[in-house]
């Protein structure tokens, strides 16, 4: 066990309530003033198989779920078999001895085996199987010397005032577990200072949904798909109260086209999906690019190709996002690095979409979408820029697709008298009429086309200026520069801190949140003075490194690719750094 932090893991089978118990614990930690980062390892089956969730809680900010557990709850034998031996020195394992056997001689030094008759104790409070988890949670609260009242407050929030009996049962069961360990059946080194600092605990998806609400989204259409579904769930639950129309569409073709219809109608519109659904949005995205309709599209990546690893993480859809839609059209791709950026970048995405009147793609991955992280209370009072609107007083001068230096044209929306126009997917002229309707075959049709295409593509220049370059984190001069995009930031920074603390060499990290339009000049500037470079990304072919090379000609010296479906842990990166730098 490290000082100041604890990694808690609970494992069982799908259907055992692993994730929800972990959430209860994560909230208890958050309300105890700790920073939290979680990860759920689960499968594409509703029941059975093996699943586990880790909650890492620390006095100082944590950006990933860490590595081996300090405290482990084994809800079934598989969990003991797979995880018990990994529990860190000085840690604890909680099992129901009537159900699970632990091989004691495989355990690390000083690991306490806490045997609690979980099921038996739970029976007093409820017949529900899941209540045994609560007993175990209570025990953990006791072991870690946390304030039991904080736990109670979490349970109360979760079940609300209307379910007093459920609350009572849970509190009772937890108390039984708590008292069991209080009676000397185990106690850990007091792991962390608990405070009353209040923070939020959100998944990346929730942060995006909140960012959208803050930004004034008024229309959200989505078809469920892991790991994007909880955006739909959150917005369906909270949107209508704030006037947001939230539609589960019949498929993703419909989602994107509904969002385009709503965007054309003048409201802020969004959709969200994963790679398979995004594949179905490809044609619609190009349509939005051509119609110049703002729309925000969340692409939450999971393991591919095809259905692939539906509940596993990957960063394998960058080529897809870059290549979506026939022909060339301007898009921006943003890959938030953590839950806070999920909120902030959603706000940014809506503003970019409105200002540049084109689709903005927000890319996350399963681990960021679904993992909880603590954030400081979001400021919902966000900047909102709806972009260029037509001059209400001059309908006669209005041209929807006016050719401008910025590529952005004045916008008008249905209902505005005198501003009627047709937004057409065929190439058109400034007023929206089709070249083929009025200039079919006339020599100047070519010029008109070129003018309009150039205009659209000029938006890329503006978007480049309106977004910031990659962030160089760590020492300015380093022996090795890691290059990454999106959620890889978390384990990567931790790996760097560890390496830099333990070795003579210095490593830093170049992190991309704004992926496209690509910040070529900044990249070249920074990387020209890099000694050695290594791209760290969660896919097979190194899609981001290819993009970087296509934009800068710079080839990474090394690559670390992970595509087994699991997120990077700091140690994976540490050991690759050591290999590359020939450290012991």
């Amino acid at each position, binding site marked *: 066990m490290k000082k100041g932090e604890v990694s808690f893991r609970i494992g069982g089978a799908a259907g055992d309530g692993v994730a929800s118990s972990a959430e209860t614990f994560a909230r208890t930690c958050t309300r105890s003033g700790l920073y939290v980062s979680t990860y759920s390892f689960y499968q594409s089956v509703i029941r059975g198989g093996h699943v586990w969730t880790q909650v890492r809680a620390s006095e100082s900010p944590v950006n990933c779920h860490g590595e081996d557990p300090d405290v482990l709850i084994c809800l079934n034998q598989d969990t003991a078999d797979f995880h018990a031996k990994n529990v860190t020195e000085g840690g604890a394992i909680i099992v129901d001895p009537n159900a699970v056997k632990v091989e004691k001689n495989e355990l690390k030094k000083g690991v306490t085996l806490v045997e609690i008759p979980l099921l038996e104790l739970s029976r007093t409070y409820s017949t529900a199987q899941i209540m045994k988890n609560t007993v175990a949670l209570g025990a953990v609260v006791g072991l870690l010397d946390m304030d039991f009242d904080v736990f109670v407050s979490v349970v109360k929030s979760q079940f609300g005032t209307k379910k007093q009996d459920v609350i009572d049962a849970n509190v009772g069961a937890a108390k039984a577990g708590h008292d069991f360990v209080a009676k000397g059946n185990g106690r850990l080194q007091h792991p962390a200072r608990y405070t009353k600092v209040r923070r939020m605990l959100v998944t990346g998806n929730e942060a995006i949904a909140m960012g959208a609400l803050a930004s004034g989204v008024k229309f959200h259409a989505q078809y469920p798909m892991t790991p994007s579904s909880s955006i739909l769930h959150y917005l369906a639950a909270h949107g209508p109260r704030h006037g947001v129309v939230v539609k589960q569409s019949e498929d993703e073709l419909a989602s994107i086209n509904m969002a385009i219809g709503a965007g054309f109608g003048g409201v802020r519109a969004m959709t969200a999906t994963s790679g398979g659904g995004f594949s179905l949005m490809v044609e619609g995205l190009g349509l939005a690019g051509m119609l110049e309709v703002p729309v925000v599209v969340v692409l939450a990546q999971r393991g591919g190709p095809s259905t692939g690893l539906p509940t596993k993480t990957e960063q394998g859809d960058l080529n897809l996002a870059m290549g979506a839609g026939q022909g060339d059209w301007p898009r921006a791709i943003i890959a938030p690095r953590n839950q806070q950026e999920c909120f902030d970048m959603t706000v940014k995405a809506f503003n970019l979409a409105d200002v540049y009147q084109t689709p903005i793609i927000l890319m996350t991955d399963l681990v960021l979408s679904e993992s909880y992280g603590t954030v400081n209370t979001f400021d919902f009072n966000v900047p909102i820029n709806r972009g260029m609107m037509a001059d209400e007083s001059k309908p006669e001068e209005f041209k929807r697709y006016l050719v401008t230096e910025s590529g952005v044209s004045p916008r008008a929306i249905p209902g505005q008298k005198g501003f*009627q126009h047709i937004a057409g997917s065929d190439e058109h002229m400034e007023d929206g009429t089709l070249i083929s309707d009025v200039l079919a075959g006339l020599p100047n049709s070519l010029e008109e086309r070129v003018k309009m295409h150039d205009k659209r593509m000029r938006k890329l220049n503006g978007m480049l200026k309106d977004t910031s370059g990659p962030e160089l984190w760590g020492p300015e001069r380093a022996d090795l520069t890691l290059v990454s995009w999106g959620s890889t930031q978390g384990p990567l920074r931790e790996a760097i801190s560890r390496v830099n603390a333990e070795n003579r060499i210095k490593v830093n990290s170049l992190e991309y949140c704004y992926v496209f339009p690509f910040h070529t000049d900044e990249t070249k500037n920074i990387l020209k003075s890099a000694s050695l470079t290594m791209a760290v990304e969660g896919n097979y072919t190194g899609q981001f490194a290819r993009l970087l090379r296509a934009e800068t000609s710079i080839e990474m010296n090394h690559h670390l690719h992970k595509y087994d479906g699991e997120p990077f842990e700091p140690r994976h990166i540490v050991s690759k750094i050591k290999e590359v730098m020939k450290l012991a």
Partner: protein
Amino acid sequence: MPDEEVYEFKSGIKPMWCPGCGDYAVLNAVHKALTNLKLEPWRVAIISGIGCSSNLPHFLTAFGVHGIHGRVMPIATGLKLANPELTVIGTGGDGDGYGIGVGHFIHAMRRNLDITYIVMDNQIYGLTTGQASPTSLKEMKTKSTPEGVIENPVNPIALALASGATYISRGFSGDPKGLAELIEAGIKHKGFSLVDVFSPCVTYNKYNTYDYFRPKVYSLQKENHDTKDMGAAWKKALEWGEKIPLGIFYVAEGVPTYEDLEPAYRQGMPLKQKLGITDPRELIEEAM
């Protein structure tokens, strides 16, 4: 109403349809219906897909989206939901609506949104120069079926009955007056309205011509068809051959529309709301 409130709906752009194309009559009928209804062009939006027929929005002075092939309904749905005060009309071809778009068509109908969908059904793919369409009759020879179509045609009226459309009708470009009336009634109807139109393609469909239809078509309304009787409508939907019914097959009045049920509207119309969250306390609290 005073005269000046009647607006011109024809834009200055001349359709490039072939001389004799049925779509001219549809355009005229739409124009007439909109004018008769004294709608204001800026409160009307016409959404189309891709096809000869889908060029129609350009020839009107309303707002519109000339979208992509088969996605008329989703675009119209998104727009209508964002701003339910608009009169939203979908237009397009049989390929667009009943072929590639038939899934959206089914789902749009079961939502019973207050949208009017006018399908120019020429039983052929016009713009792509003459392949079989989902309504091409069996055995019809086309570029893609030189030995004749071997599929049974889609029956849009029957599909509409099976899917909850609340106004179901069929017109004919050879009967422009009747067609305009059907469109007008469809727009007036609160709920999803289908106006299926036999709109002959004089260039690529040499079989289902004006002369093919003229002797066969008759008006349901002249026959005292009961538009409230779903069973009768079903029978009429299946009628095809020597006699082909035109007019209104079925109307369900008073069925709540999607707009009536959408919970978000309790906060007002999306387009008119203030953006953002004024009081985020509840959202924040819940996430703690």
